[in-house]
């Protein structure tokens, strides 16, 4: 067993503060930087959702201070419809790109993938550093949209053309704000391409002695598969963003057809196709859903056996399913476009792989539930969030059945049913994965334990809270409640307003509960009890080194791996019920 005596490599000492903590090439510092960025982003995104939810419940009631913060968007504290849509667009963009992609994939992946494979760092440390700073630049460009001209864009995170492409005539926020959006996402694509290449190269080339692919920890398998997905997906979104920018600033017409009259003005464009944008965007967009959720799959599959004290059921099946999902994820994008005006024959074609993808997803879910069977379950904050992940993933996954079928999508498309579906399956589930990962790895990352009491309160209130927010959205969808409405003026929506108010109260409450997490995070970082090297009795390599790991991860000698990551519930050395991957044979 490579045990933890820190042999800090000499060069770690000589680095300046700036080189060590800011412009560091150490994957652990970069991973933490990604997580810090995601934390800033998620707080921003959550505050935006509070404002939106409040507006949906009580559209005419002024919000204190908002009038001062946004004198144009919310004069006197009463939000305008365009300001609502601007907040919605920024909420979606920030959450999908800078939280759900950044935290579970780039953040945890950066920190733990090299340690999991037994490497000292990523394959290309400088490119790794660059990908973080490029991501930060993308975030700053996006946030800058709040401060320009008539504000951020209002075309949603999907930025459907021609609304996103024709410029100011299409309404407030469609000026420089929308251009900044497209630039920001383009920059983000570059960062992800760099990051994904690094993940792939590191996984394939830097595995330590004995670390065969079959012995890779499940989180690392998921990050690897995610990197492959991201590499292809972002490589399509990048040119799409470039074409969108050209349409906006150079007068091209990739996405704008001729004969459009916007605000009584005939637009000087012809020959473009709005459906082209949708195809390009969703060719990225659906795989992106898996970029957000597959790391969660990996994190949960790694955490559950630790706290169940037994191996993950069917590890090879799990990996096969991950790969199957990755392949299928490229064949299903058209299910976002059943009603888009594309050839209706293709709807059936896209529907079948969409439904087929539920098979590997269902198998993985059964593996998790089967892993809990017969366990010696230790319920900690981390394992509670992992079990909560399974519950919310089931809830979100099953509503996919309705949306995968063109015939039922006719009714449910564009309603709150869709909002409920993707918030459960990629929002809440991915967040639960992030929370589970945080409670699990915090001791390793910072050398201190988090408060379990606060962690459990955080879990229970969040778990109940998210169901109160998102389960009723299915009911709204069934009643035909259209999404992306800033207020409900239609006659048939009036009876649904009390349900919206319930959701708003639940959302404000659940949002406030996250302050417990934030407090726990900060307090534990400063004065949490010291963490042992392997507090959870886990097998993977990060638990063989000190908490936090030294600069080169293993104190000068690379571990040799003799076991898989799944050796739980076995007769291990020294009366333990597990065998560490780096244990001597």
């Amino acid at each position, binding site marked *: 067993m490579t045990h933890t005596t820190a042999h800090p490599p000499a060069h770690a000492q000589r680095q300046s503060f700036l080189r060590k903590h800011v412009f560091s090439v150490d994957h652990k510092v970069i991973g933490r930087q990604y997580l810090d960025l995601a934390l800033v982003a998620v707080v921003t995104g959550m505050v935006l959702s509070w404002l939106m939810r409040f507006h949906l419940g009580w*559209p*005419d*009631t*002024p919000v204190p201070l908002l009038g001062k913060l946004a004198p*144009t968007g919310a*004069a*006197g504290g*009463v*939000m*305008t*419809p*365009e*300001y609502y849509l601007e907040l919605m667009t920024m909420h979606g963009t920030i959450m999908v790109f800078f939280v759900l992609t950044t935290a579970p994939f780039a953040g945890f992946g950066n920190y733990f993938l090299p340690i999991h494979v037994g490497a000292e760092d990523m394959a290309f440390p400088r490119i790794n550093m660059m990908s973080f700073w490029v991501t930060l630049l993308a975030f700053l460009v996006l946030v800058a949209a709040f401060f320009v001209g*008539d504000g951020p864009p209002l075309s949603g995170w999907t930025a459907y053309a021609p609304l996103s492409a024709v410029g*100011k005539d299409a*309404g*407030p926020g469609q000026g420089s704000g929308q251009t900044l959006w497209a630039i920001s996402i383009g920059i983000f694509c570059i960062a992800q391409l760099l990051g994904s290449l690094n993940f792939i190269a590191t996984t394939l080339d830097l595995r330590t002695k004995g670390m065969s692919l079959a012995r890779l920890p499940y989180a690392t398998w998921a990050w690897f598969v995610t990197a492959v997905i991201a590499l292809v997906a972002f490589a399509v979104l990048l040119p799409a963003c470039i074409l969108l920018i050209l349409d906006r600033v150079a007068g091209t017409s990739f996405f704008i057809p001729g004969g459009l009259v916007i*605000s*009584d*003005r005939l637009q000087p464009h012809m020959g473009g196709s709005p459906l082209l944008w949708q195809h390009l965007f969703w060719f990225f967009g659906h795989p992106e859903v898996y970029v957000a959720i597959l790391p969660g799959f990996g994190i949960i599959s790694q955490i559950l056996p630790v706290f169940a004290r037994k191996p993950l059921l069917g590890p090879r099946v799990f990996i096969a399913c991950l790969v199957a999902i990755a392949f299928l994820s490229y064949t299903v994008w058209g299910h976002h476009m059943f009603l888009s005006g594309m050839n209706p024959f293709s709807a059936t074609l896209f529907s079948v792989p969409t439904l087929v993808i539920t098979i590997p997803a269902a198998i993985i879910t059964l593996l998790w539930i089967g892993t809990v069977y017969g366990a010696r379950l230790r319920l900690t904050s981390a394992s509670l969030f992992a079990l909560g992940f399974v519950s919310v993933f089931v809830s979100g996954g099953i509503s996919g059945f309705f949306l995968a079928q063109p015939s039922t999508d006719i009714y449910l498309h564009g309603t709150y049913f869709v909002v409920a579906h993707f918030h459960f399956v990629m929002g809440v589930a991915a967040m639960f994965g992030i929370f589970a990962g945080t409670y699990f790895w915090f001791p390793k990352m910072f050398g201190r334990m988090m408060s379990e009491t606060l962690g459990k309160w955080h879990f229970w209130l969040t778990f109940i809270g998210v169901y109160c927010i998102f389960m009723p959205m299915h009911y709204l969808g069934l009643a035909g409640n259209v999404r992306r409405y800033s*207020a409900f*003026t239609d006659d048939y929506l009036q009876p649904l307003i009390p349900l919206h108010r319930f959701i708003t109260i639940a959302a404000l409450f659940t949002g406030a509960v996250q302050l417990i997490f934030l407090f726990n995070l900060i307090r534990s970082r400063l004065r949490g009890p010291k963490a042992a090297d392997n507090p959870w009795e886990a097998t993977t390599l990060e638990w063989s080194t000190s908490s936090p790991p030294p600069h080169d991860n293993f104190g000068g000698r690379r571990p040799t791996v003799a076991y898989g990551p799944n050796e739980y519930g076995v007769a291990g050395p020294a009366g333990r019920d597990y065998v560490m991957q780096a244990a001597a044979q």
Partner: protein
Amino acid sequence: MIARFSALVALVALASGTTPREPHRPAGGTISGKVTFTGTPPKAKPIDMSKEPNCVTQHPTPVTTEDAVTGPGNSVRYVVVYIAAGDQGAAPATDTVRYDQKGCQYIPHVAAMQVHQPLTIYNDDPHSHNIHPLARVNAEWNKSQPKGAPPIRTAWDEPEFIALKCNVHPWMHGYFAVLSTPHFAVTDSSGAFSLSGLPPGKYTVTAWHERFGTQSLEVTIAGSETKPANFVLTARPY
């Protein structure tokens, strides 16, 4: 479209005034008259407000379009008549122009104002409107004004005839006539107007209508007199 914007060309940019204009000039000449049309004007079309039931109930008799409002004796309403040349400069007006959105209509249909004159826009309806002045010379803007939001206070920097629309209620249509002169009037339902307080001088008086185009006359004012100026615009049915 062409007619609407050709009016811009007719506008003459005036040198900035050196003597401040007194708010209520007691003496001076007056130009008054009437605007009529020849030809066939378009029929006033009933406006279908059915998407906004609030507004339907506010109008017991259906409202019709106001882009060409004609009256007895071929009179034309909503014609802006103003001094296009010969003005001796003016200080900015300080009284506020009030513009209303009520019953899904702009009231008045045409509001004339001076450059930099304060303009306040109210939403008197129990629902949201958006005000979208389709300005080309001035800075274009597009803002919603939900129920409960404060009035929008603004002003225009350059002379321009600015078409106004509400995207939420596409039938809502009005005009801001932003002029550099302090001497302007909008014809009433009988097509009549009156420009008063004019110091002696030679003036170009222009009448502008959003569909019937513009026409100018030369009028010389010698003292405290009233000079007539009648305009006959050409109407087309479509």
